[in-house]
């Protein structure tokens, strides 16, 4: 087939008609269209997506190709839909014989069926929908003529397991369609080579094209009349000033770090919106209908602002966004730069962005982030090898499509960059787990999941199992969500709330969703029914949105900034606060650990300022309280932020130095790890992805609360009877890397080398005071708490007046 290295004439005409000229990197993409793997790194607005599709359109222009030619994979459903819209315009205007369709979780069943029977030339999809397609028996037929795969926003996918799953799927596709070419489209990243290595089929190289990054952004911090609060993350105090900015600009995106914060902020914004500016809200827990309405209004230019979360982080082209506001510290400079790129979608014009710190300390973090952006210092941490739980799921998916040969599959998996280092023994472990459960106790002889046939191929014992496996494809770990809809026949779907939150609601309670206050009426068949009669102060729906920890690079910058004599660029309130901290206590330093102790509300408090990021601070909290427990200090609980951990208990900590002995902390980690909630949470995710726990069942959905219960029990049972089981090994490894984030603890120990400063204060210090207001308090299960539980039980008994009814007595025998 003729491959175009230059633009076919109708393309040149079309560009000319629009008054556009083709970007150098777009031409480069055409020139290198034959490369087996190719990655383009370009800022938003650089015509990245078109660059990815130009070779496809050129190849399809003559109408000779039949069937599927190009797969486009994006991390967001909305993006797939949006790209279909945008791509259809040039295709229609040039009169190209090209059929474009999207296929996501939102696509109707009938359309999906038709797509399998008669695939379009270009199919736009998500990693999960693609994995599902690959699991069908007719996958070889669907993908036989496939030529190109375009992975959009690959930097976002590659950060997590969705990227690993996608790359495994691509390995499978390459077997079905030999000669498949891969293209990755990425925003600015810290390490392009590492990303390219994930995309390419190992050990082949991947070519990289870097587009001109464009001018530096115009970025500043919002100065408000009222100082930001001491703690919290919502930014509600700045609503008026934010509204003022919205008024001054054409279209503003207002980013939040979590969905709950977006909801609260939107509500407050709406209450203060005296001019009735059209403002919308968009996040992943809103119903598709609600999201689509907002997207359509935005495209039509009807909205002046959208309050949003990461769901708008990526490439949807909103046209006229001229301001990005980030509420809350960005935590990660790379992410900030990518978000800022959302403003001014015109190439070669600076993006404008304003940071709104949500609390006093975030003022400092925002200042550090601004410096980092100016210095072009992106942060990043190296990604570990491909996770085995995702591989287990991939083996199941492969088995769904039909009998497979283990050697062929192993070779295929080794070709995936992230799994290039996979040993045969590891692979065999995964296969054994999928086939038999992989237990030391050889049970289930009769009920294996996979059977080895006489010809050596593996297949499902019960073909009906394919249905259940397909229902549980994917690696996104959502909390268990319940749908919310208006009461009454045909009630409008509004979105989703977490099951745990729904369980706390009683009739008459009100809460916020999609910016409106609704009243809880009933829970019916996994749906929360609400009405509009909202006559109480709304409660806030909670979402376990992953809170990103402040990156190590940013934390170091903050620590260095704190050492300065003065901070003239900071607002008065924050400046005074820092000076006060220096006067009454000390400033935290990069090379030392600052511990402050003080009494408060009848408890002894100790605040550890170690700046290791939220997850590692959480881990430190667990390790330190465990050691304090053995020292008899009766810790009761702790709370962690990105910068510090605050522990409270019944007794005072007078000698913190031994707590930080590196060797003992590490040993403590080993024994402590097994019993803790972070491990159980990680286990739940790993076990779900690997197929040990099924989240979705045909007909009835297992309720989340039961799932939580049993996954903890499974964890305890495995730990006791089969501690070296594959799923536990994978859990340990991932917890260390993820929620435990022990690498950051190590990094902190390394830079402080046991140098501990203790400040004993008679009241909360300025830095620690802010910690007292933090939520997400973690209780410590120990002697102290057992004592309190008994006291509480006794108090309840007494309060209830039941003690007199021939009360039972505790008999210690």
């Amino acid at each position, binding site marked *: 087939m003729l491959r175009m290295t230059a633009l076919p004439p109708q393309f040149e005409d079309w560009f000319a008609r629009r008054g556009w000229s083709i970007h150098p990197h777009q031409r480069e993409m055409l020139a290198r269209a034959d490369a087996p793997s190719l990655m383009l790194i370009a800022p938003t607005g650089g015509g990245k997506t078109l660059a990815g599709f130009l070779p496809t359109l050129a190849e399809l222009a003559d109408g000779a190709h039949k069937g599927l030619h190009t797969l486009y994979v994006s991390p967001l459903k909305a993006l797939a839909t949006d790209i279909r819209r945008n791509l259809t315009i040039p295709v229609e205007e040039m009169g190209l014989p090209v059929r474009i369709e999207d296929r996501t979780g939102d696509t109707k069943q009938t359309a999906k069926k038709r797509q399998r029977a008669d695939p379009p030339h270009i199919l736009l999809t998500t990693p999960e929908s693609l994995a599902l397609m690959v699991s069908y028996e007719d996958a070889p037929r669907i993908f036989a003529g496939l030529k190109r795969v375009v992975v959009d926003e690959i930097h976002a996918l590659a950060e997590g397991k969705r990227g690993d799953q996608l790359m495994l799927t691509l390995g499978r596709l390459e077997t079905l369609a030999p000669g498949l070419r891969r293209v990755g489209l990425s925003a600015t990243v810290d390490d392009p080579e590492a990303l390219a290595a994930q995309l390419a089929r190992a050990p082949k190289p991947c070519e990289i094209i870097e587009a001109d990054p464009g001018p530096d952004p115009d970025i500043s911090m919002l100065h408000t009349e009222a100082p930001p609060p001491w703690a919290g993350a919502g930014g509600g105090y700045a609503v008026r000033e934010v509204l003022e900015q919205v008024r001054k600009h054409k279209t503003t995106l207002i980013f939040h770090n979590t969905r709950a914060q977006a909801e609260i902020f939107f509500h407050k914004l709406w209450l203060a919106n005296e001019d009735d500016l059209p403002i919308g809200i968009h996040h992943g827990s809103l119903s598709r209908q609600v999201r689509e309405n907002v997207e359509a209004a935005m495209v039509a230019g009807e909205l002046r602002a959208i309050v949003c979360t990461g769901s708008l982080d990526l490439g949807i082209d909103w046209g006229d966004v001229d301001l990005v506001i980030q509420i809350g510290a960005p935590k990660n400079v790379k992410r900030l730069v990518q978000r800022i790129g959302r403003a001014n979608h015109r190439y070669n014009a600076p993006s404008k962005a304003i940071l709104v710190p949500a609390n006093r300390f975030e003022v400092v973090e925002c200042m550090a982030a601004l410096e980092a952006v100016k210095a072009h210092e992106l942060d990043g941490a190296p990604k570990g090898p491909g996770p085995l739980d995702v591989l287990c799921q991939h083996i199941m998916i492969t088995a769904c499509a039909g009998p497979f040969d283990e050697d062929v599959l192993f070779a295929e998996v080794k070709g995936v960059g992230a799994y290039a280092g996979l040993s045969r023994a590891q692979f065999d472990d995964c296969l054994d787990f999928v086939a038999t459960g992989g237990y030391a106790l050889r*049970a*289930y002889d009769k009920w294996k999941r996979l059977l080895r046939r006489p010809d050596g191929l593996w297949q499902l014992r019960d073909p009906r199992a394919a249905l259940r496996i397909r229902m549980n494809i994917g690696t996104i770990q959502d909390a268990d969500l319940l749908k919310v809809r208006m009461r009454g026949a045909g009630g409008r779907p509004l979105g989703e709330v977490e099951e745990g939150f729904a369980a706390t609601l*009683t009739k008459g309670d009100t809460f916020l969703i999609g910016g409106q206050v609704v009243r809880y009426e009933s829970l019916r068949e996994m749906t929360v029914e609400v009405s509009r009669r909202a006559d109480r102060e709304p409660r806030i729906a909670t979402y376990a949105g992953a809170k990103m920890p402040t990156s190590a690079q940013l934390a170091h910058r903050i620590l260095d900034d704190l050492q300065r004599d003065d901070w003239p660029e900071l607002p008065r309130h924050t400046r005074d606060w820092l000076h006060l901290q220096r006067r009454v206590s000390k400033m935290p330093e990069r090379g030392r650990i600052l511990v402050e102790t003080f009494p408060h509300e009848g408890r002894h408090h100790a605040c550890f300022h170690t700046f290791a990021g939220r997850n590692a601070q959480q881990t430190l909290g667990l390790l330190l309280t465990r050691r304090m427990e053995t020292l008899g200090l009766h810790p009761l609980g702790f709370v962690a932020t990105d910068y510090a951990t605050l522990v409270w208990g019944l007794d005072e900590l007078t000698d913190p130095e031994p707590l930080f002995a590196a060797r003992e902390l590490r040993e403590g980690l080993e024994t402590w790890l097994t019993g803790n909630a972070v491990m159980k949470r990680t286990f739940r995710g790993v076990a779900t992805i690997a197929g040990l726990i099924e989240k979705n069942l045909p007909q009835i959905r297992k309720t989340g609360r039961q799932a939580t219960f049993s996954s903890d029990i499974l964890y305890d049972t495995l730990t006791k009877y089969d501690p070296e089981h594959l799923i536990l090994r994978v859990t340990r490894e991932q917890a260390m890397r993820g929620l435990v984030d022990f690498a950051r603890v190590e990094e902190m120990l390394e830079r402080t080398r046991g140098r501990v400063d203790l400040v004993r204060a008679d009241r909360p210090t300025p830095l620690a005071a802010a910690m007292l207001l933090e939520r997400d*308090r973690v209780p410590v299960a120990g002697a102290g708490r057992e004592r309190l539980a008994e006291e509480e039980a006794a108090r309840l008994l007494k309060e209830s007046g039941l003690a007199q009814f021939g009360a039972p007595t505790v008999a210690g025998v």
Partner: protein
Amino acid sequence: MTGLEIPFRGETLRALGSGALHWAARDLLIVSDLHLGKSERTARRRGTMLPPYETRATLERLAADLDASGAGAVLCLGDSFDDLDAARGLDGQDRDHLLSLIEGRGWHWVEGNHDPGPADLPGEHHAELTLGPLTFRHIAEQGAVGELSGHYHPKLGLPGCGGTRPCLLFDTDRMILPAYGAYTGGMPATAPELRALIGQPAFAVLTGTKPLLVPYPARAAGRGRRRF
């Protein structure tokens, strides 16, 4: 052994932290909803292969309770097996362990909805059983007096003290036992099904290192969060 002595219909029953009840006067240990063989049944019916250790875990707990209490007889209050095939499909080692516990003891199997017929094991099978003032049946009956049952797997949490734990519920007329088996979910003690059975005044005994007696939560009222 630590326990909580509960006066009930003129008898004294001791609730253990494990969820078992010891009726010393009759030398009897009462447990409910063991659900032995659950992982085998799950693999058979769903194809998911749970860690096949729950029978071992449950029996080890039962053995420990028998050791500590020295009880000469056991009463299983139904759903002892996840189904009758699971009873037949017990792994050799687990089956031997169970037989060794039964050996030399009086053993009463009250049937449950999961295990409606007699299993091929020693012991007496009962649809329900009355001993003195107490009646043992798997599913509580409205209006019954002096009744001990299981079935609902009640669980309850204390404000500010972490998650929920399986618990025993009782009022002056009846007791509802927690599930004793290792792989068992739970129903909130305040669910309507349980509210309909439990009168006032009523108590719950939370399982744990020590059994913890608390009043059965009254209906509605505020949800204030206490801080510890």
